[in-house]
Structure formats: C-alpha cells, structure tokens
C-alpha cells in the first residue's frame, strides 16, 4: 500500500473538499463492504477518505421532513416507522447494523453473490431525495436518479416526508448473514399517492410504476409488478424464483398498507 493517501476529514465541507471530483477516491464509511474488498485484494486504493469524523451522522426532523446523515449507522433507523424501520432491522446482524451506515447501503454496488443495499427500496418508497457533493458541486436529486448514476458523488444526506402509512414485506433469511433475496417496500404519502419499490433485483432497487398504478387492488398490482423489474439471478435465488415471488410480496405489502 505504498503511496496510499488516507484522509480523515472533520466536517462535511472538509469531506467534500477531500473528495474533489471523486476520481480515484475510495470512500470508507462503516467499511463493512469496502474492507473485505481491500483485504482480498479486489480493491487497491491510492486515496481513501474515512468519513467517521466528517459530521455526517444523525437523524434530524423539521416538521414532517426527516433527514438522515450519510454516516448514520443502520441500527439508528430500526425504530423508524415502516417501511424503513423493519427494512433496517432486516439488514445483517446487530453488530454489523451498528457499524454499517445508510450511505454505504445506498452506495453499495451489486455484490458478487447477492444484490445488496436493502435500504434503497425502503427509501425509494418514501420518495426520498439525496444531497450530494462532488463533481458539479452540491446537488439535491431524487434517490432514483442518484441510484442510476452514482459516479463522482459523495452522499451527504437523504431526506423524505414522513409517510401517512408504510409497509414492508420480504422473503425470510435463513441466517442473519444472508442477504434478502427480494423485499418490497410500500408507502402512502400524505397526499394519498402510493409508492412501491423492490430491492434484491438486478443492479439496484427500483420503483414499481405498473403496480403503483393499481395500488388499490393488491392482487392486480402484484400481477402488474413483474414487468417493472429485471431480476437478479445469483447464489441467493434464481431470476425465475424472484419473478414468482414478487407478485406475492407486492400483494402482502399493499394489504398491510391498507390495514395500516
């Protein structure tokens, strides 16, 4: 690791400055994904930024607006209302949840054996927006856009309006260290619109617009959902299995939402 430059910024401004346009920079938040990459030689950073002291942790509320700092540990989200709370509680085990961060979860690329980034689905369902620094300066954009193009962006925080109701339905995990093969998050905004998102699919979590259009009818919405996602095909579950399961999870999440 000769010539390695490790920076430990002590404010968000310093973090943004250290990140620059992100070229050749390895960001380390909780490190639960990055460290093994380094240990096993799949990643050889030349410049790394440790975010632990960057002042990006914590959940704040302004009326119904909730803002979650990028380095807030996943465990701090477990008490939030559905879909975020139950989704966060379903990530890894209690010790990893205390170390892994929201930012790392949203920025997690697809893994070699499983899709990761469970919180992407829950935060899409509440219509979250993210604030980032990096190339092109500070930006606020919908989480959907960010997930589609994360290059050159340092995530600072994610915020959303507390939904009127939320629900989370997922496949069970055989062990706390298994990733979730498929999970559906649903939320009804104060204005009555329903958003649905699925995690565990190829690439990153996505919204389910065809199912959203039929949200009043859980059965029909489930049937419509399949066309909205490209399924991952990996060691956790085949694409076929995920395809068969999605309608069921959509139906369960919407039924929960109706009862909420």
């Amino acid at each position, binding site marked *: *690791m000769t010539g390695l430059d490790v920076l430990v910024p002590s404010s968000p401004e310093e973090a943004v400055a250290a990140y620059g346009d992100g070229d050749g920079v390895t960001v380390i938040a909780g490190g*639960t994904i990055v460290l093994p990459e380094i240990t096993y030689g799949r990643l050889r950073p030349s410049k790394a930024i*440790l975010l632990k002291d960057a002042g990006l942790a914590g959940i704040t509320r302004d009326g119904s607006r909730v803002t979650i700092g990028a380095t807030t540990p996943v465990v701090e989200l477990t008490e939030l209302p559905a879909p975020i709370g139950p989704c966060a509680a379903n990530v890894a085990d209690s010790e990893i949840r205390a170390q892994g961060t929201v930012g790392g979860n949203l920025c997690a690329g697809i893994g070699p054996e499983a899709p990761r980034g469970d919180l992407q689905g829950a935060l899409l369902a509440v219509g979250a927006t993210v604030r980032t620094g990096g190339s092109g300066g500070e930006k606020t954009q919908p989480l959907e856009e960010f997930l589609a193009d994360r290059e050159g962006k340092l995530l600072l925080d994610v915020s959303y309006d507390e939904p009127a109701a939320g629900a989370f339905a997922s496949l069970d995990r055989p062990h706390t260290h298994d990733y979730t093969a498929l999970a559906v998050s649903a939320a009804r905004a104060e204005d009555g619109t329903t958003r649905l998102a699925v995690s565990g699919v190829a690439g990153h979590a996505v919204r389910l617009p065809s199912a959203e259009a039929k949200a009043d009818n859980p059965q029909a919405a489930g049937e419509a959902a399949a066309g909205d996602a490209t399924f991952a095909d990996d060691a956790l579950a085949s694409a076929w299995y995920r395809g068969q399961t999605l309608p069921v999870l959509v139906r369960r999440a919407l039924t929960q939402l109706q009862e909420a």
Partner: protein
Amino acid sequence: MRLTVNGIERGIESAPLTPLLYVLREELGITSPKAGCQQGGCGACTVLVDGEARRACLLAVAAVDGAEITTVEGLGAPEALSAIQTAFHEHYAAQCGFCTSGMLIAAHAYLEHGGSGERESIQETLSGHVCRCTGYVKIIDAVAAAAGGEITSRQKWLPQTGEESPVEVPGAPA
C-alpha cells in the same frame, strides 16, 4: 497511530487501511481475535472498540486511531475470570474454542448493556456469530446464567490444592 489495547497504550506502525484484526494478531501478537472469514460473516474476530462489540476484520486501523480496544485477555485472567468467562467455563460453552473469544466479547457487551437474559434476546445478539462446533445451546445457557446473576466472577477456576479435580487428568497437579 495509537491504540489502547487491554489498558496498555501502543504505537501502531501498520499501514492505515490494515484491518484492526491483522494489527492485533500480527503487529501486536494478540491472537485471541480469530481470523475466520475476514469479511464480517463469522464473528470470530469480534473485539470491543470503546466498549462496543465490533468486527476487527471490518475496521481499518486508521478508523479506530486513539480507541480503546478490549480482547478476551482484557475481560479477565485465568486466575480471575470475569462473570461471562466463568459462565462459559461452567457451562461447557467452548468446544474447539475458535468462536469463543468472539462469543465472549459479544456476550460481555450484551451484559454491559443490560441484556435481559431472555433466550430470544441472547440469540438475537449472538446471531452473527458462527460456532462450527454447533455449541449454541451451551453458549446461550452460559450467557443466560451470567445475565441472571447466577454466576459471578471467580477468583480461581483451577482446582485448588487439596480440592479434587472433577475429572481425572493424567499428569495434572494434584
């Protein structure tokens, strides 16, 4: 960089992104945190970082610069075991021992944070720790006993002179 390991301050020479696990095992020669999966999935490397149970394989040493690290050696010594170490000993909660230091650290943190001792909460706490000898029932028994105050720290676990050893061990001190 500096770490306080089991109460002793140590200067650290390893490269900043070296996992804390290797710093402990290779630079400092403390081998109780085990190198199992080295990717967060087994719990064998768990140590206390400022009192919180953390995976030493997932932490760059630079991320814990200045922290207090506790390994099982810091929980108690053979002649003065902590409550959780005594409980593991009395309940036969170690077989090959590979998972034991991680289990002890996690269980210690659980007790320190006021863990209720209900089996479900112990299972939840230890759910990230793999015991390849499958000694889970005894491990949970031990944590429950320690949480219930049934077992407290013990000054001497080796048979005292004149006290009969429960098992005949050839060559053991009489």
